[in-house]
């Protein structure tokens, strides 16, 4: 399941909705991304997330489907926000649920890695020196490449 929204979310409510009525779930892994107050050495006072409506939903659905194809997940959720956020605010979350924890951990890492390199979002940071676009990191490409099939 995927969601793209401006509003904040409550992780516990999302997990309860995802796992409710599925008593075969033994482990739930979540990753939540937060706005940091610094970025490559600069103070960040706010962050604006731009995205590509339409493609964002399709791309997240593809990534979600790929995770479900690769791991025996009982449930899976990707939420990503857009718009202007303050330091400390939640940007996105992935939640994976499985009978056993290893699948849930691996699928969550996969979802975050692919989302970071494939989902069409761009971060504009506001700080003392004005606005600047966050640059993509080679470490994210390397993390995503771990999951490419041979």
């Amino acid at each position, binding site marked *: 399941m995927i969601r793209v929204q401006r509003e904040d979310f409550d992780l516990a409510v999302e997990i309860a909705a995802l796992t409710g009525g599925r008593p075969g779930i033994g482990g739930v892994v979540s990753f939540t991304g937060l706005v940091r107050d610094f970025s490559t050495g600069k103070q960040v006072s706010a962050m604006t997330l731009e995205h590509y409506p339409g*493609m964002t939903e399709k791309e997240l659905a593809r990534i979600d489907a790929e995770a479900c194809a690769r791991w025996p997940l009982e449930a899976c959720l990707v939420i990503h926000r857009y718009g202007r956020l303050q330091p400390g605010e939640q940007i996105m979350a992935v939640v994976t649920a499985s009978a056993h924890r290893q699948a849930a951990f691996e699928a969550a890492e996969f979802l975050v890695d692919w*989302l970071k390199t494939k989902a069409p979002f761009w971060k504009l940071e506001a700080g003392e020196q004005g606005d600047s676009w966050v640059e993509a990191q080679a470490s994210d490409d390397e993390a995503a490449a771990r999951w490419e099939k041979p």
Partner: protein
Amino acid sequence: MKILYFAWIRQRIGKSSDELDVPQEVATVSDLIGWLQSRGAGYAAAFADRDALRMAVNQEHVDAAHPVSNGDEVAFFPPVTGG
């Protein structure tokens, strides 16, 4: 053809989209970039560094060799930084 621009590409061009009739000789995304570059200084600046450019045709990531035609939705953007 509907052409969308995001992030600093949008800012350099000064708008978020174009609706354009593209000449027949524009067969690939690469051709399209060349054609757009001639449309003014903002476009030239936006497309100056091809290595920094990512693109989608009909909302799927593609490379510059991908074919395009007038019914397509084409998007240009920097490498993504969500998550």
